[in-house]
């Protein structure tokens, strides 16, 4: 971009949000050129921090006038390079819009601005004995707006669903600068198309979310946690199926493969058995009698499927220690090599063990270290590859391996991404899943929302 337009851009943005909320220094632009995704980097021309819907709309109008891209950004914790400004333009940061506007206990909804952190929302809800269930790993940092734009998941997906299941309404600034409101506080509302649903996972390509109305549920009375070791992941998978067929819907069903167990024990020393082939962490919430009964039944189901050891936590401390093992997986794996690549291919629950086996075969064929952990309840896997990117053709091998992993997921009836989003990272694999006709439809939808093509261009359907 030439410097005349640069100056005009800075001036235009300053008029909308105020000079102190625009950054054009190369240092700040460098910092906002990345998110939490390795290997992807862009360089925006400006970064701006609006404080209201009107300011967001003003920024969109400036971008329209100058024909520069806008990349909306929350906390920049996404793992698919969805907020990387690879075509330059404006990074529009929504963290100043972080107010909880209303906690409506009577209707069990929260109304908030997009920059509110997920944890802050959950804590506010908890203060009224309510639960905001989506709990992505980054919840202490991530913003609710970012969660909706990527349709973030979390550990409670099977029982409580994902972010999209909690969005009742939203206010959106379209690519034209027009502001629309869709949905609201109503559980039932069929007036018009379900644009709220369309915004979930739209990755900033259709509009900029400027306000959200979110559904809350009653907070469960208590919870319990346990673990089971198996020789084979397939046995753990069968145990999970048996549990569900017996009418129990656990809140937590997390698994670690042998590589992950070894990495966690090697680094965090939480007392895991490294002779096991798989670890299943299970949990239930609800009234205390139900929790106790369900925990016992899940334990029984694991034993019936040849679990080599089963333990149900007796105290809150013990529960915390078990969950610690799950939280330690990513950090433990990441310490094995300089670069960590975390993916989220997902398959139907019944194909989980098969998929993990496929990943193991692919990893050994390309001589890569890939540990797989994830959500056994909803089939959402996190194959995690740790590499030294400077080591010969490693990056090339990683690319081939993940291409095969995504193909295997599709073959088993799955998806290339369960909860991280497509972003730049998986864009090349999207058409393989959706097909040409659907890609063309997505492009037509995109151009209806954003005729000038300025909203996060080059991602999803643009």
């Amino acid at each position: 971009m030439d410097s005349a337009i640069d100056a005009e851009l800075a001036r235009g943005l300053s008029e909308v949000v105020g000079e102190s909320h625009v950054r054009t220094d190369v240092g700040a632009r460098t910092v906002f050129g990345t998110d939490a995704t390795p290997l992807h980097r862009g360089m925006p021309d400006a970064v701006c921090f609006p404080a209201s819907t009107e300011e967001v709309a003003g920024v969109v109008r400036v971008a329209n006038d100058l024909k520069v891209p806008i990349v909306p950004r929350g906390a920049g914790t996404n793992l698919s390079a969805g907020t990387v400004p690879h075509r330059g333009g404006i990074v529009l940061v929504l963290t100043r819009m972080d107010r909880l506007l209303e906690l409506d206990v009577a209707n069990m909804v929260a109304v908030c601005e997009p920059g509110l952190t997920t944890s802050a929302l959950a804590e506010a809800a908890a203060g009224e004995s309510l639960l905001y269930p989506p709990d992505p790993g980054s919840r202490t940092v991530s913003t609710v707006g970012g969660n909706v734009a990527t349709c973030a998941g979390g550990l409670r997906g099977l029982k409580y669903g994902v972010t999209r299941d909690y969005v009742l309404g939203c206010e959106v600034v379209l690519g034209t600068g027009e502001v629309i409101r869709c949905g609201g506080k109503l559980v039932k509302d069929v007036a018009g198309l379900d644009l709220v649903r369309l915004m979930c996972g739209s990755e900033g390509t259709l509009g900029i979310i400027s306000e959200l109305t979110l559904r809350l549920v009653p907070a469960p009375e208590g919870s319990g946690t346990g673990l089971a070791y198996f020789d084979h992941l397939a046995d753990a998978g069968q145990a999970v199926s048996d549990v569900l067929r017996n009418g129990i819907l656990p809140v937590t069903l997390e698994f670690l493969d042998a590589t992950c167990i070894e990495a966690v024990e090697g680094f965090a020393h939480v007392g895991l058995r490294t002779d096991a082939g798989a670890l299943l962490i299970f949990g239930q919430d609800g009234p205390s009698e139900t929790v106790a009964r369900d925990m016992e039944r899940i334990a029984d189901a694991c034993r019936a499927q040849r679990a080599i050891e089963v333990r149900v936590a007796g105290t809150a401390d013990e529960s915390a220690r078990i969950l610690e093992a799950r939280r330690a997986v990513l950090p433990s794996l990441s310490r094995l090599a300089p670069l960590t690549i975390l993916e989220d291919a997902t398959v139907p629950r019944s194909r989980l063990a098969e998929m993990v086996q496929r990943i193991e075969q692919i990893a050994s064929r390309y001589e890569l270290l890939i540990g797989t952990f994830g959500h056994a309840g909803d089939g959402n896997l996190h194959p995690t590859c740790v590499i030294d990117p400077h080591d010969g053709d490693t990056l090339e091998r990683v690319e081939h391996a993940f291409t095969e992993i995504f193909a295997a997921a599709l073959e088993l009836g799955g998806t290339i991404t369960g909860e991280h989003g497509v972003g730049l990272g998986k864009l090349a694999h999207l058409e393989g899943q959706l097909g040409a006709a659907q890609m063309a439809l997505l492009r037509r939808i995109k151009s209806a929302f954003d005729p000038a093509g300025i909203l996060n261009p080059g991602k999803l359907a643009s």
Partner: protein
Amino acid sequence: MTERPIFTPELLDRCISCGFCLPACPTFALTQSEPSSPRGRINLMRALQEGRLPDDDPTVVAEASFCLGCRACEPVCPAGVHYGELLEEWRDHEWTGRRRPWKLGPLLLATNRRWRVRALGLFRRHARRRSGSGPHLMLGCFERALFPHVSRQAAALVPDASVTPKQGCCGALHAHNGELERGRALARSLGEDLPGMILTTSGGCAAHMAAVLGRDRVRELSEWLAGAGHTPRSPARRLRVALQDSCHLRNANGVWREPRALIEQVADYVELPSASTCCGAAGTYALLRPGDSRRILDRKLDEIAAADPDLIIAVNPGCLRQLRQGLRRRRLRTQAIHIAELLTSHQDNDGSSPADARQDGRVRAAPG
């Protein structure tokens, strides 16, 4: 531009850019600005290392200096980034020539030779020479001049500690301010002056010495006393007492339960919401950036005003100085004292208590 070895590559590679450090960072809390967060600063460091940004880039220069160096980002980092070491390497590279803050010169000069450090405490009554079978008491550099009673009280609390005036600065000051090699050399030389276990009343020095000499050679006073089962005399009247953690003591050496446990033995402990976050003293920060230092402290002073404790305890001389200045400026009734001072007032046998001392407008120093 090409890759330059400013940073140890393994230290830079550790960061996975997850952003978990953002909520822990005081300068991010103040500005809500990504470049003023640990993740943002590591991005700047990477750009420097890869030659994408020049040394004199204004944002790079500003952020290297705006960072408090409190290392609150380290305990919350899932990937185990050694941010403190990266910052030392950054300032070692950045703070040379004209980019070095001019106020640093006299400070670092005053403490870079043993005789100069001794001169700082020449006319002050720090702990007197004695030999014992226990640890070697470190007298500190600026603590000798500013708070000489602290070493006297520490010596009273640890009767078997050896004291020798023949000791210099530990070099934490240098390591944190762009003279990394000298900072390490000073620590090694202090380690020779004080063989065996070193006992210090300064959390910041404890962390630096632990990093250079090894964790098992260094104990901060509260850590030592808690480990030795120190039991102070029960007071007639229990004061309400708050604590300001030493950032490096907590975030690098993992010592934070110990001072709380000791305070609880003699007083009603009040945990301030920001007890574990930086008070803005941050070594030389209060001198180099007084405005920002005050902005950081102001939030804490609000909390102190609201909780209204009788005392606030420091475990590091820099924090003590910072808190005293802030409390005086706001005219709050709370007094800031070192933990050695609190504990000696519950050790001596002349019947005085901190409550009496408070009425005198000062807290009584134990005989040293």
